[in-house]
């Protein structure tokens, strides 16, 4: 048993760390560190910096710009991004849409979309949830009707993250409402956000931030070449994405950085045993998650099998820890303070409540483990 990275892996980590130190722009680093809003330009500037280095899409096949790193290197890279406090790489294009195109897309679709995703020319968003279809995604109602060489799309999506920045949206839509098995009538469509009939309406969350939206589709004409995989096979695509590599969902690197920040911010409170115990328990929980994550990674490297439903555990613990850290940070603010950092920290506490709800609520994650791992 050996819990440590190999010498080569450590050298790789140091290389990534040194490069990030030298290439993460100071202004972006400070924005992230101080929980400030990141604009579309901020996000894309960082995206292009990584693209230029050749590191924006490590998991892609080499022919499309991937790095050829193994699963451990990819994990180390992701964790180092979080640890350094870079702006996030928005996953909808690089991680999600690209994975779908690489698995199910035609050659023409790959050529058309992948280079633009890589270079940051297109900003993507994800059209999954609907007002009546949250956890029960297969009940979605937005429909696409084939008319000649177009689909005509009508309906509504909700909680669409950064749709107001997006050039493109990938959507699950119902192409056949007559089938008894509702999963079978769903298709996966790509839509240009500039298409007439698409309207984006902001949904402001309790921290006052504009991050998510409602997206309305009103007789939107989508060329049939924008269908991915076969008509009616959208659920297969969606399931593939869910099972896709999710080794980084625990976000240990990011939480390590938040923990260090918190310890510095709350330095004056360390004498209080009540505070110290809360902080210590959370640090222990994070250490346990880190090792659990490495255990899964080790298993995946040696079996070559993608992580099973157990990876839901990483999402559950990871988000609980992120929320715990945000809560402690908020509790560490002087109740009488109204400086920008204290205000940002409080808003972050509000905002982080979303993490146990999004990307498959933690209750859904527990359902997945119960069914897939425990056989209940």
């Amino acid at each position, binding site marked *: *048993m*050996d*819990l*440590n*990275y*190999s010498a080569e*892996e450590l050298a790789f980590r140091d290389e990534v760390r040194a490069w990030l130190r030298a290439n993460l722009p100071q202004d972006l680093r400070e924005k992230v560190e101080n929980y400030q809003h990141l604009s579309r330009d901020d996000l894309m500037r960082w995206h292009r910096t990584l693209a230029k280095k050749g590191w924006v899409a490590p998991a892609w096949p080499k022919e499309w710009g991937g790095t050829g790193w193994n699963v*451990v290197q990819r994990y180390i890279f992701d964790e180092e991004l979080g640890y350094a406090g870079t702006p996030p790489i928005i996953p909808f294009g690089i991680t999600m849409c690209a994975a779908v195109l690489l698995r199910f897309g035609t050659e023409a679709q790959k050529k058309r979309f992948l280079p633009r995703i890589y270079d940051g020319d297109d900003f993507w968003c994800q059209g999954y949830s609907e007002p009546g279809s949250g956890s029960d995604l297969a009940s979605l109602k937005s429909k696409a009707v084939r008319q000649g060489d177009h689909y005509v799309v009508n309906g509504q999506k909700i909680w669409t993250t950064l749709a107001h920045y997006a050039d493109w949206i990938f959507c699950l839509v119902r192409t056949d409402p007559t089938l008894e098995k509702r999963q079978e009538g769903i298709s996966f469509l790509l839509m240009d956000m500039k298409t007439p009939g698409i309207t984006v309406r902001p949904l402001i969350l309790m921290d006052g931030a504009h991050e998510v939206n409602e997206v309305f589709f009103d007789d939107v004409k989508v060329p049939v070449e924008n269908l991915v995989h076969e008509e009616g096979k959208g659920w297969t695509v969606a399931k593939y994405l869910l099972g896709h590599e999710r080794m980084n969902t625990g976000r240990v690197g990011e939480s390590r950085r938040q923990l260090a920040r918190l310890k510095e911010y709350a330095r004056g409170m*360390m004498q209080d*045993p009540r505070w*110290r*115990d809360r*902080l*210590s*328990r959370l*640090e*222990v*929980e994070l*250490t*346990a*998650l880190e*090792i*659990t994550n*490495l*255990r899964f*990674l*080790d*298993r995946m490297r040696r079996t070559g099998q993608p992580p099973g439903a*157990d990876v839901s*555990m990483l999402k*559950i*613990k990871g988000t609980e820890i992120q929320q715990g850290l945000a809560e402690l940070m908020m509790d560490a603010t002087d109740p009488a303070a109204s400086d920008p950092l204290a205000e940002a920290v409080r808003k972050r506490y509000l905002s982080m409540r979303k993490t146990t709800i999004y990307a498959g609520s933690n*209750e859904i994650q*527990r*359902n997945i*483990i*119960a069914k897939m*791992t*425990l*056989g*209940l």
Partner: protein
Amino acid sequence: MNFDYNEEQQLLADSVRRYLAKAYDFESRKKIVAGQGWSAEAWAQFAEMGLMGLPLSAEHGGFGGGAVDLMGVMEAFGEALVVEPYLPLVLAVRLIERGGSAAQREALPRVVEGKTRLAFAHNEKGARFALDAVRTQASRKDGRWRLDGEKAAVVGASSADQLVVSARAQESNEAGIALFLVDTGKVSLQTYRTMDERLASDVVLRGADAEPVEGGLGALGEALDLGTALVCAEAVGAMKFACDTTLEYLKTRKQFGVPIGTFQALQHRIVDLYISLEQARSMACLAASKADAGGDPRSISAAKIRIADAARHVSQEAVQLHGGMGMSEELKVSHAFRRLTVLAREFGDADHHLARFAAL
């Protein structure tokens, strides 16, 4: 990075598990507990499998095993709720190997063969988990050491031939703590059953003859950290049993015409038990690795905090999810509850280790 046991470790753990499955099932264990409280036959088998020599170097007839080598054994013991005092023996032989006289070390092969039994007497009443709260006095007269004082809750003392005892001596290092080897024939024992069905004794020393074992507070701290790492592994085994048996119960117990495992309220709770178990297993790996790498008290305390919390969570929920049957002595799960309750506190409870973790 590699989280698997190596082949030797796996083979040993498997052979221990096979033996326990055959000869130490719940019914056999009940008989042992109801009888003299430990099984000479099981003890002989453990020696036969090489467990007594596992923590000793080849020089003393052992296999030079570290905490990771012992982990698989401790997990298996945890699953079977073994009551024989193996861990106290491990700590005692480690201390003797480290600082024992030539004669003491020459006697170690008899321990390896299972012929001599040792235990470790450190706890005193009122000390709780403080390392240096030792009041037993050692004094030297005419070149002979004698001990006076009381040790409490010494697991395995009643079946041991000799005890490694911590005491306060004038001529000794650090905080005045020194270690001694004492024949159990020279002390008086008051033996009782612990809440987790093992035998423990209050040990009264009245001018008891003692031979010094080199090593003070440092040696004691190392031994207790090794013990901490190993109870972490044992707790993981006991928790694994509790989780698995509870899952089985959810699949078979029917109410309202369906298995109760179909109820989401219960599904989410057992999922949380398995998450606790995995988090605990990760920390047990950390503790054992650190113990082998020369010790890292902060990490070992971190592990014990997580494992103490997990032990309470898993044991309490396992009983709750079994309903009334969980309370019954007839099911092994209630015995796992008792063992896990004690394991959560052995070598320091969560509060003790939180204080140490934060101070380091």
